[in-house]
């Protein structure tokens, strides 16, 4: 379609093309599966359940369970989770179910342990609250350390970037006004046929961040298009393959489905800042993203995809083949996806603390001072940390009372010999929890707070943090 519109124009394309197929294959955390186990004898009304040691929730009555993709195994957390359980079941493998209950007159049993395959289940339906993001952020990390996020492994100081999404192949991008997508739209889901059952949670169409809620029979699915996955130090998830056929009902749709990667933009977002509103550093197109490198300021950054373009293409091609062979019939939606919903942030009724809430004025020194002078300052100001700054107030090091004691004992007099130059720091608007975690990780008891120019704004100490966080 894209090429046809370019070469022959929208009119010709509209006359010649009936359907455009799309596809995407990426990690979709808000995914899971509903299963019904049938009744045991004597019967049990499950209270808590685990499959292969992954905690499973029971949203309904006695033997209905929901396997959430991000629930993690109690024995192998961060390696094995709900996504892997779903994949194992789809593959036909046997899984171990354990459950406990409080026992009632009608459901006397208090525990059960059994092995199951998908054939033993009455229902095994994929039921995903939010799939198929129209587009997603490109992630980078400005911190001095590698971070592990749901956007993958991000190297320090913007040394790499990651992105997700199929760009011009994305289903919602090809029908951005949702003329053909809504409740009841039949789709490709995990290698089988499924349905859109409504807009997804956090659906935000006006920002080109539409999502869909989907359901499909997981017993018929194929592990090639449904895979358990692990993001190191973030947790487990599920890779979901999803494709939507878009009937070309009018010239407008012919034009919309001709969308190209160069016309789809997303923000480069700094995941090094652990806040809801992370700084946006640049705007890039999916064309640049797929080229393998993007430019932010004057920096060229190599970029990795987290979703598989190869599998996305295969999904679109498979869907096309199904339609051509008469195995898949298009449906008109019963109700179209809303185009006006907004995505509100959480209402918080309790105060949260940031570094700025507990920061104190830092006691400073300069490179040229003597150990003796700094020792005196530690005593008179009764602090444990002295921050070393240059003439313009920029951070150059840190000296602790311990460093001073040792220096005095060893008869050292030059500050330059004892100062720590690689200083672990904090930012003003950083949540206190992350600053506190960083202190614990590096086994230190204070962090100078600096701005983007490395100017010292103050200091936050473990003592003040624990007073406020109460630990």
């Amino acid at each position, binding site marked *: 379609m894209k090429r046809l519109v370019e070469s022959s124009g929208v009119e010709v394309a509209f006359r010649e093309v009936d359907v455009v197929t799309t596809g995407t294959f990426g990690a979709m955390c808000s995914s899971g599966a509903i299963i019904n186990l049938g009744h045991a004898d004597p019967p049990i009304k499950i209270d808590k359940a685990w499959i292969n040691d992954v905690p499973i929730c029971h949203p309904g009555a006695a033997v209905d369970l929901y396997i959430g993709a991000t629930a993690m195994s109690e024995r192998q957390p961060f390696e094995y989770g709900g996504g892997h359980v779903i994949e194992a079941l789809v593959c036909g493998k046997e899984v171990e179910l354990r459950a406990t209950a409080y026992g009632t007159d009608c459901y006397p049993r208090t525990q059960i342990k059994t092995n199951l395959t998908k054939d033993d289940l009455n229902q095994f339906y994929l039921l995903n609250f939010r799939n198929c993001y129209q587009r997603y952020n490109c992630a980078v990390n400005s911190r001095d350390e590698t971070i592990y996020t749901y956007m993958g*492994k991000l190297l320090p100081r913007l040394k790499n970037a990651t992105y997700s999404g199929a760009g011009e192949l994305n289903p919602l991008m090809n029908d951005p006004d949702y003329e053909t997508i809504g409740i009841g739209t039949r789709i490709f889901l995990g290698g089988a046929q499924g349905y859109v059952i409504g807009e997804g949670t956090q659906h935000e169409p006006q920002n080109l961040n539409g999502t869909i809620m989907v359901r499909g029979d997981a017993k018929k699915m194929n592990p090639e298009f449904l895979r358990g996955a692990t993001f190191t130090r973030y947790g487990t998830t599920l890779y979901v393959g999803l494709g939507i056929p878009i009937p070309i009902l009018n010239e407008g749709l012919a034009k919309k489905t001709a969308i190209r990667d160069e016309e789809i933009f997303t923000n480069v977002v700094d995941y090094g800042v652990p806040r809801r509103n992370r700084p946006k550093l640049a705007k890039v197109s999916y064309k640049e993203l797929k080229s*393998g490198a993007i430019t932010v300021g004057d920096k060229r950054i*190599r970029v990795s995809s*987290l979703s598989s373009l190869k599998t996305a293409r295969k999904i679109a091609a498979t869907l096309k083949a199904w339609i051509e062979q008469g195995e898949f019939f298009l449906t008109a939606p019963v109700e179209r996806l809303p185009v006006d919903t907004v995505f509100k942030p959480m209402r918080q009724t309790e105060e949260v603390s940031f570094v700025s809430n507990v920061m104190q004025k830092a006691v400073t020194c300069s490179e040229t001072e003597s150990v003796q002078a700094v020792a005196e300052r530690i005593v008179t100001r009764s602090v444990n940390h002295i921050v070393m700054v240059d003439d313009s107030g920029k951070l150059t090091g840190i000296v602790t009372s311990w460093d001073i004691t040792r220096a005095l004992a060893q008869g050292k007099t030059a500050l330059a010999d004892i100062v720590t130059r690689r200083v672990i720091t904090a930012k003003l608007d950083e949540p206190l929890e992350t600053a506190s975690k960083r202190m614990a990780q590096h086994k230190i008891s204070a962090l100078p707070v600096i701005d983007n120019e490395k100017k010292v704004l103050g200091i936050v100490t473990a003592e003040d943090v624990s007073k406020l966080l109460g630990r």
Partner: protein
Amino acid sequence: MVRILLRFSEDIVEQPITSQIILELKVPINIITAHVNSKGGEVLAEVPDESLDKVVKAFRKRGAKVSIPKLIEVDAEKCVSCGACVTLCPVEAITIDEDASVVFNKEKCIGSTCSACVDACPSRAIKSVKQNNSELVANNAH
């Protein structure tokens, strides 16, 4: 052949150590990748099994650090060609070809001493495996 990873510090990086050893021992040493600058160097090389012992000794005598990396292997069944590993590779051993498949260049990969891609793989498709002559390696080189 066994793969060895040689590290040269700033002090010795200017010296033609590898060529000296080739000449002295008359052993073919196949350089696979080399990353060298004035601050030091890292060279991945292949040596014949039977000469491993003397080659390692010769390098260590001249101040180079020698380690025997495990090899990185990708399980094609598990790999979904997502690409998450690509930018983590410092030697650009992982690339994406025209049909969007992710391809590992085993020749370029410096092995377990790097491993930067391993924990970035959501499918856990990347593993480090012992070189098949690792028994011999263990006896001789350590």
